[in-house]
C-alpha cells in the first residue's frame, strides 16, 4: 500500500516494521513526530524522557538488555546526550542502538545550526542520511542491522526538509519479532574504567576500518552515471536539489556519510572531468574528500549557512546570479507571536517592566523578547536561564540585588532546570526563578513530561510537584501566582526580588491551546469606542486580536475624541479573543467590555 508520509512518520513506521520495541526521546523540532507516530504502533514501548541524555542512556540500557532501541532528538539534543554517546561508542551495544539526530539548517525553530554529521566522526560511529520518506523508512532498518552487525551505536541524521516533507511511501508488514532480551553481564565490555576502555578503544579503530570496507560495497552509496563532464557527490536532501537542478550530470549519492568509501569516491572522481560536492552547512564531505587528495569544488561556491534549494545549487554551479529575479516590494514582517490568551503574556508584561536582567530559556515564551513585551534578555540553551541567573547574581554581588530573574517553562525546567536550581540553593544565589508552568511542552505541540501527570502513551503517571521540589532542594521562598492576574504577579515579584536568597515563583495555568488541561477561556471582549481614550496601553500586550484604528482612516462623524490629542481607538477582534482579561485589567477608561 502506498501512502503519503513525512520523513518522521516514515522513520517511526520503519522502526515498527523492523521489530524495534523500545524508543526514548525528548521533543524538539524537527524530530518530535517520530516519537508521537511510533508510540501509536502496537506492541512498542515509547517514552518521553526528561531530557536527551536520559533518553539515550535508557536506550543504551535497553540495547544492552537485548532490545532494538532507538533514541530520538533534535540536533542540539545530541549535545545534551553527547556524554553517553562517546562512551557507548566504546562499549558497543549488544543488540542494536540507533540515535536519530534531526538537524535544522536555516534554524527554522532552533537556537543554532550545528551540523551533527560531525558527531559521527567525533564519536567514531557510522551515520546514515536519507533523502526522502521512502529512504527514511528503509534507512532506519539498515541502521539497526548495521548496529547489530558491527556492535556500534548508529546515527541516522535527518534535516528539517527530510523530517517535515511528505512523499510517497510503500508500506510493508512488520517482520517476525524475535525476543532476545535477557539479563546478561559482560563487565569488561560495559565497565569503562581505563583498563577496559583502552582495550575497547582499539576495537573502535578496527570497527571503523571494517565499516569503511562495508561502505565501499554498501548499495546506498551509489553512482548514477550520466555526463562524463560533471560529477556531483552529495547526500540527504541536497541530493534532490542537485538532481532537480542538473538531471544531466553524474551523481555519487552517499547513503552513509561516515565513514566514507574512499575507493568508490576515487572511482567516481576518475570518471568525470569536473567534480562538485553539494552539501548543506559544514564542508563535512568536502574536507574528507580533499584530504584524500582529490580535487573537488564545494564551499568555494556554495554557502556555509542555511539550507539549499534547487535554485541556489543551480546558480552556484552554473555561475548565474539569483539577482536575475527582480525583488518584490518590501512588506511588514510577520513574526510568530504568543497566542491570544497565552498564560505567558501577563507574566512577561510585568517582568519586562521590572528593570531587572531577565535570563530566559527555550520555549514559546522566548518570543516574549520582542517589542513591546521585551520580557527576556538572554536565551542560550535548555536550562541556562537558571544557571546563568545564578552566575550573574554571584558576579554582580550587591549590584545584582533585586535585579536578576530567571524565566523557564515547565518542560524545560524538568529537562535541565532542576540541577541549576539545586545549585542556587546550595551555593546561595540571590535571584528569582520564575517557572512558567503551562502543563505541557507547548512549543513543540503539546507533549507530556514528568510534571503533566501522563506518559507519551497516554498512561496516568506520577506528577512532579514544583513547590515541594523547590522546598526539598532548600529554596525557602516559594510562591504560586495566577498568570492572568497582573496585580498579583507584580506584588509577588516585588516581594521575592526584595527577599534575600533564592526564590521560586510558579506561574501556573495551562497553555490556552491545550484542551485536555482545561485552559482558562472566557467570553470574548470588545472595545467600547465611546469610552476608549486612545491611550494604547492595551497594545503593549502585543495580543494579535487587539489593533489600532487611527481616526485618520475613519469616516468623519463615525468617531468622537475623548481628549484633544486622541488619534484613534483600539479595536478587539472578538473572533480571536479568548477573554483572558489582561487588556481589561490595563484599561483605565473601562472601555474593554464583554462581547454581548
Amino acid at each position, binding site marked *: 500500500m502506498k501512502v503519503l508520509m513525512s520523513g518522521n512518520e516514515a522513520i517511526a513506521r520503519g522502526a515498527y516494521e523492523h521489530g524495534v520495541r523500545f524508543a526514548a526521546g525528548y521533543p524538539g523540532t524537527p524530530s518530535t513526530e517520530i516519537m508521537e507516530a511510533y508510540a501509536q504502533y502496537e506492541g512498542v514501548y515509547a517514552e518521553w524522557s526528561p531530557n536527551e541524555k536520559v533518553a539515550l542512556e535508557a536506550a543504551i540500557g535497553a540495547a544492552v538488555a537485548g532490545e532494538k532501541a532507538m533514541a530520538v532528538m533534535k540536533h542540539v539534543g545530541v549535545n545534551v546526550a553527547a556524554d553517553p554517546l562517546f562512551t557507548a561508542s566504546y562499549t558497543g551495544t549488544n543488540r542494536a542502538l540507533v540515535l536519530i539526530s534531526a538537524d535544522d539548517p536555516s534554524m*527554522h525553530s532552533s537556537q543554532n545550526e550545528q551540523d551533527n554529521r560531525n558527531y559521527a566522526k567525533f564519536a567514531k560511529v557510522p551515520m546514515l542520511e536519507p533523502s526522502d520518506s521512502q529512504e527514511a523508512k528503509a534507512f532506519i532498518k539498515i541502521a539497526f542491522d548495521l548496529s547489530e552487525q558491527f556492535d556500534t551505536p548508529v546515527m541516522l541524521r535527518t534535516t528539517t526538509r527530510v523530517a517535515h516533507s511528505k512523499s*510517497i511511501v510503500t508500506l510493508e508488514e512488520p517482520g517476525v519479532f524475535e525476543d532476545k532480551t535477557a539479563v546478561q553481564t559482560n563487565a569488561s565490555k560495559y565497565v569503562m574504567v581505563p583498563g577496559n576502555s583502552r582495550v575497547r578503544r582499539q576495537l573502535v579503530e578496527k570497527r571503523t576500518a571494517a565499516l569503511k570496507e562495508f561502505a565501499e560495497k554498501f548499495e546506498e552509496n551509489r553512482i548514477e552515471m550520466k555526463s562524463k563532464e560533471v560529477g556531483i557527490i552529495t547526500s540527504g536532501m541536497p541530493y534532490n536539489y542537485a538532481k532537480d537542478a542538473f538531471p544531466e550530470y553524474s551523481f555519487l549519492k552517499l547513503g552513509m556519510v561516515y565513514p566514507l568509501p574512499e575507493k568508490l569516491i576515487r572511482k567516481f572522481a576518475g570518471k568525470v572531468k569536473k567534480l562538485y560536492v553539494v552539501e548543506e552547512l559544514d564542508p563535512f564531505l568536502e574536507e574528507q574528500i580533499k584530504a584524500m587528495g582529490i580535487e573537488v569544488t564545494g564551499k568555494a561556491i556554495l554557502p556555509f549557512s542555511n539550507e539549499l534549494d534547487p535554485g541556489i545549487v543551480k546558480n552556484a554551479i552554473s555561475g548565474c546570479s539569483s539577482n536575475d529575479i527582480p525583488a518584490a516590494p518590501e512588506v*511588514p*514582517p510577520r513574526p510568530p507571536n504568543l497566542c491570544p490568551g497565552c498564560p505567558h503574556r501577563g507574566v512577561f508584561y510585568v517582568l519586562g517592566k521590572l528593570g531587572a536582567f531577565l535570563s530566559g530559556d527555550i520555549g514559546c515564551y522566548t518570543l516574549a523578547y520582542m517589542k513591546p513585551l521585551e520580557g527576556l534578555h538572554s536565551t542560550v540553551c535548555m536550562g541556562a536561564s537558571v544557571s546563568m541567573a545564578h552566575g550573574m547574581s554571584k558576579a554582580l554581588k550587591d549590584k545584582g540585588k533585586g535585579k536578576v530573574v530567571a524565566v523557564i517553562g515547565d518542560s524545560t525546567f524538568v529537562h535541565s532546570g532542576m540541577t541549576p536550581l539545586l545549585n542556587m540553593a546550595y551555593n546561595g544565589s540571590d535571584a528569582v526563578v520564575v517557572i512558567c508552568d503551562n502543563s505541557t511542552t507547548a512549543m513543540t505541540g503539546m507533549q507530556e513530561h514528568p510534571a503533566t501527570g501522563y506518559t507519551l502513551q497516554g498512561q496516568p503517571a506520577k506528577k512532579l510537584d514544583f513547590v515541594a521540589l523547590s522546598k526539598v532542594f532548600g529554596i525557602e521562598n516559594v510562591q504560586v501566582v495566577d498568570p492572568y492576574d497582573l496585580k498579583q504577579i507584580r506584588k509577588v515579584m516585588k516581594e521575592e526580588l526584595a527577599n534575600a536568597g533564592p526564590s521560586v515563583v510558579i506561574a501556573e495555568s495551562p497553555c490556552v491551546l491545550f484542551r485536555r488541561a482545561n485552559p482558562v477561556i472566557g467570553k470574548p471582549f470588545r472595545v467600547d469606542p465611546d469610552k476608549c481614550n486612545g491611550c494604547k496601553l492595551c497594545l503593549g500586550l502585543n495580543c494579535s486580536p487587539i489593533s489600532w484604528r487611527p481616526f485618520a482612516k475613519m469616516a468623519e462623524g463615525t468617531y468622537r475624541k475623548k481628549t484633544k490629542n486622541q488619534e484613534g481607538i483600539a479595536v478587539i477582534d472578538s473572533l480571536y479573543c479568548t477573554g483572558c482579561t489582561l487588556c481589561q485589567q490595563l484599561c483605565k477608561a473601562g472601555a474593554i467590555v464583554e462581547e454581548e
Partner: protein
Amino acid sequence: MKNKVTSVYMVGVGGQGIIRASDILCEVIMRSGLDVKKSEVHGMAQRGGSVTSHVRFGKKVYSPLAPKGGVDILVAFERLEVLRYLVYVKPDGRVILSELELYPPAVNLGAAAYPERVAETVRKRVSDVKEVNATRIAVDAGNIKAENTALLGVLSTYLDIDEKIWNEVLQEAFPPKVLEANLKAFAAGRAA
C-alpha cells in the same frame, strides 16, 4: 518524455489551514497516479507567523522545494503575503489571491502600513491573477474556517485532475459536522 514537474506554493498566516489544504492537495495528486512531494516548516510558524507549504508533482519529483522563479501556481491565503513570496512565481505563472487582510503586529501597533493596491503590484509581474473573496465563500457555505477549501476549489480548476478524486478525498478529510460546509465551499471555489 520530459519530466515536467508542476510547483504549487501555498502561503499565508498560521491558523489559516494551509498545511491541511496542502495535505489534501497531495493526497488528491497521489491518487491521480503522479509522484508528489510537499514541504513546510512546523514549530515557530504556527504562532501567527507567516506559513508556507510547497507542493510539487509530476512523473518523478526530486526536490520538495521549488526554487525562486520556479513556482507555477502561487496560492496566497492572505493579501499581503503574496508580496513576500512573489519572487517564487515564474513569469508565466499564475496567482490565486485571497482578498482577506490580516494585519501583522507592526501594522496592528500603527508602526507600519498595510500595503495598498496589492493585486496591481502582482499584475505588474504576473498576468494571470485570480482574486477571490474566500472569506465570503466560506461564510456563505456555513463555516468561516472553510476558506482553505474554497481556495482549493479555485486551484482545482487550474489542475487536470478528475473532480471525482477531489470529492473522494474531501469526503475523507473532514468530520461529518463540517463536511457539508467544506464541500459547498469547494464547489463555490470551483465556480468562482
